[in-house]
């Protein structure tokens, strides 16, 4: 039984919504090939049956697996560029101006996946934070498999080709056979922990910056709301929140407002102690 036009349309709608990737007609064979392993895992004989079940019983976890299977496998370093540039040019200087007492910065990479995001943050902070300051990066994910990978910090040649500036590659990585491994110095400020954002979070000291990128898109509105609620409880009142390029808090949690951050935007709590950040660029 092969995929019907309606089933294909459902899958491409799902993928486009969650990843902005477009699967035009003609790509049915791709959907068949990539979803067959998932169908078999679910004990179903065909992709068509698998898809029609996914339609009838939508589950966030299943949708995420479908989207993952159909979108590119490798995640990038410095994903979307601008948030990391903003971290360097605007946010860290702003925080350093305020935290002169403690001289400590805490960053959270929530849903760190295979680790490209926390290591990217470590690269940026390593370059701009002076020796007299301390910084910690907490990297969490729901998958222990992903966390093990992230902690190992070992990447294939194809993976390090993805958005990683060559000078960062030679400075922060060493070849290990056919792979590239992060330097101990890059890994040192990072703590890897398992965490499920859709469940009550452990009590942790609040963070100055939280990266919650391309996570909310996989959840329904109710879950988005509860995740944001929990995550924001771990954000300093004057802290910064980064979402994915196509995401927003609008319609989900109006305690946040969107503010300029370098050449992109970030989110801050409206009732934060300082709603007008020093060093922030003018709007418009």
């Amino acid at each position: 039984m092969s995929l019907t036009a309606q089933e294909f349309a459902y899958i491409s709608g799902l993928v486009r919504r969650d990843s902005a990737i477009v699967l035009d007609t003609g790509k049915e064979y791709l959907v068949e090939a990539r979803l067959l392993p998932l169908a078999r895992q679910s004990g179903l004989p065909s992709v068509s049956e698998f898809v029609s079940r996914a339609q009838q019983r939508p589950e966030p976890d299943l949708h995420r697996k479908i989207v993952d299977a159909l979108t590119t496998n490798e995640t990038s370093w410095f994903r979307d560029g601008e948030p990391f540039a903003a971290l360097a040019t605007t946010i860290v200087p702003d925080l350093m101006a305020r935290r002169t007492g403690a001289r400590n910065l805490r960053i959270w990479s929530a849903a760190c996946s295979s680790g490209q995001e926390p290591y990217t943050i470590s690269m940026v902070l390593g370059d701009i934070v002076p020796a007299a300051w301390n910084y910690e990066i907490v990297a969490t994910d729901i998958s222990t498999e992903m966390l093990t990978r992230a902690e190992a910090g070992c990447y294939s040649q194809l993976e390090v080709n993805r958005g990683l500036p060559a000078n960062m590659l030679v400075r922060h990585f060493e070849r290990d056979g056919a792979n590239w491994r992060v330097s101990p110095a890059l890994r040192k400020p990072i703590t890897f922990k398992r965490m499920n954002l859709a469940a009550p979070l452990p009590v942790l000291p609040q963070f100055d910056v939280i990266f919650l990128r391309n996570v909310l898109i996989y959840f329904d509105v109710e879950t988005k709301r509860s995740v944001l609620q929990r995550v924001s409880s771990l954000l300093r009142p004057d802290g910064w929140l980064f979402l994915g390029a196509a995401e927003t808090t609008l319609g989900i949690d109006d305690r946040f407002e969107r503010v300029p951050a370098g050449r992109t935007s970030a989110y801050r709590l409206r009732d934060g102690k300082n709603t007008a950040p020093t060093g922030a660029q003018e709007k418009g």
Partner: protein
Amino acid sequence: MNHTTPTDDDLRVIAEQVWSSYLDLDGASPLIAKPADAPSHEVCASVSVTGAWRGHVVVRCSAAASRNAAAALLGVELDDVTPDDVTDALGELANIIGGNVKSLLPEPCALSLPHVLVHGESGYPQVMEVCGLEATWLDEPVTVSVLESTVVERVG
């Protein structure tokens, strides 16, 4: 930095990455690390390595696989593939695989230009296979071998 001899697994990873980058971009026709029913030496593309390590990296496949590779790599229709296309495509595959193998060998080494032979088996006197990959692509045989030269280099 320590260099060990490349393993069968290293070769498999390299070949899979080459395939998924150039010949199987959408994942629908991957290189499968399983021997085909019968190996084929109809087309043979190789690069030689000189320097701190000496030997050859050889890619062998059937004529059909070579034409599929040329079509995919060069973006031409299968029916339009010319013998020159096959030579250029297979030569470049041997070059890229060879280059990646070189990165696993002691430094410094240099890679020769590729050599492609159609309808003939390339012979390499006095070599020893250090690792190999027998694979299948679109039901056709593709093999990769790393052959180390056993000739003792004379000094002076």
